[in-house]
């Protein structure tokens, strides 16, 4: 079992068991469903933005593997208080740092599901 805890470390498992920011917002600025078709992970992400384009609140619900749900939980903690341009600038290494582990190519889409969904949600706002 050597090496297993590299990926399934306690922090990830804790976020998987008890994800932060679970639920729905009363009046979200934007809602988006994110899917990872490879393994069926799905999240519904909601963002509340103020007039200055700062995220004031965030919520999600979903189901999927531990990496996708923990990755989304961790990234949602980071979104609150950030401006949309700051969120669009976030990248894969940032998520890896949050997870505390370098996720391999078979799981990278799970790890990035939360961030990519948030970025797509923001992009959809901009095009409105």
């Amino acid at each position: 079992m050597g090496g297993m805890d590299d990926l399934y470390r306690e922090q990830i498992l804790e976020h998987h068991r008890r994800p932060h920011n679970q639920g729905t917002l009363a009046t979200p600025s934007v809602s988006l469903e994110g899917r990872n078709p490879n393994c069926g992970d799905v999240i519904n992400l909601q963002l509340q933005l103020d007039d200055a384009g700062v995220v004031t609140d965030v919520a999600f619900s979903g189901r999927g593997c531990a990496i996708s749900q923990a990755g989304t939980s961790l990234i949602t903690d980071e979104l609150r208080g950030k401006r949309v341009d700051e969120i669009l600038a976030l990248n894969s290494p940032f998520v890896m740092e949050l997870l505390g582990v370098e996720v391999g190519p078979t799981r990278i889409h799970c790890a990035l599901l939360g961030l990519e969904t948030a970025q797509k949600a923001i992009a959809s706002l901009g095009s409105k």
Partner: protein
Amino acid sequence: MGAWHNADGTLDPVKVRAEYPIFKTQPGGRPLHYLDSAATGQRPQRVVDAVSKYLFTANANPHRGAYTLAQMATDGYEAARARIATYLNVPASELVMLGSATEALNLVARSWGKVNLRRGDVVLVTEAEHHANLIPWQQITREMDADLEFIPVDDITGEILWDRLDSLMKLKPKMIALGHVSNVLGSIAPLAQIAEAAHAVGALLCVDGCQAVANMPVSIPDLGADFYAFSAHKMGGLFAGGGLWARAELLEQMAPIETGGDMIHSVRLRDAEFTTGTQRFEAGTPDASGAVALAAACDLLDEFGRDKIHAHEALMIERVLRELPEVLPDARILGPRDANQRAGLVAFSSDLIHAHDLAEILDRRGVAIRAGFHCAQPLHEQLELSASARVSVAPFTTHDDLDALFAGLRDARTVFEG
């Protein structure tokens, strides 16, 4: 009994294993426990040897050229077709060689469907279908303004509710399309009963045989099917191969989807006459080496004995069904609990451990399983599952492989129960 069997005539997976060079490798530095043959089979030595021999001694463009070597290429290709036809107990003249089972099912839907479906006609498929036997029917029914209806599954076990067949026949379907063995449920469809019901209302039966052809005896004339599609790579052949059997008179009614060289009788600048028979559906240079590979795979599977393969795999599946609930108490097993109603695979889900996490943790012991939808997303939606884990077995599967599976399942429980 030959080189592959025990004294009592049963298949010896350890002897079988020696024919598959992949097991001499150690992917990631670990011995391989390959439990994903339902996705693709491993390749036997003799299959690759047969391809080498064909390409190094008989290589020219089949069906063309007047020289000796070109005739040898044609002979090799047609002998391969004949061998594959024998494997399925059908005439070679009714076996269309194609690039995949997906291509075969698309050919049936698009070619047969285009000629035979009218507004309001019904095509019936199961809710458990593989996408390859679902989406082509979605497409053609939409195009022809026909209706797609479904044989439902049980919301908990996923088992296909065949007892609904009688009432669904009141819809007078034109076509019933379904898998011989479900690639998620593992269940063997009662084809004789379905064919009888179909033919009684004038419907045809299109069968996706991908999960049956490598795992159990398949004699197509005994099944009552009108179309039967299969893929080569699940039988130990090469990747880009598959085929379609249909009765000659049905093939005659169907127009080719792909046109070009090797399928014509005569061509003028503004039109062309197509050749007759299977070759009409095989435009372009055929994958002759793939056919030769598949013929060699058929030889090997027949040496193993398909009844003996089925018996061996049933033993392995029986153990999985028996021990899985002990090792992972919250496992939700999809499909029938009786191993004899299955061929080659078991899929399950767990609320404790998502399938993808399970596959990752099993990989650390060299155990390869499939996690996800297995190209059957609607079935998973019906069961309210975001994924399932699938264990599939083969003639080379040993108790050692299953020991590794269960050890890995215990690892996963330790991680997730904390």
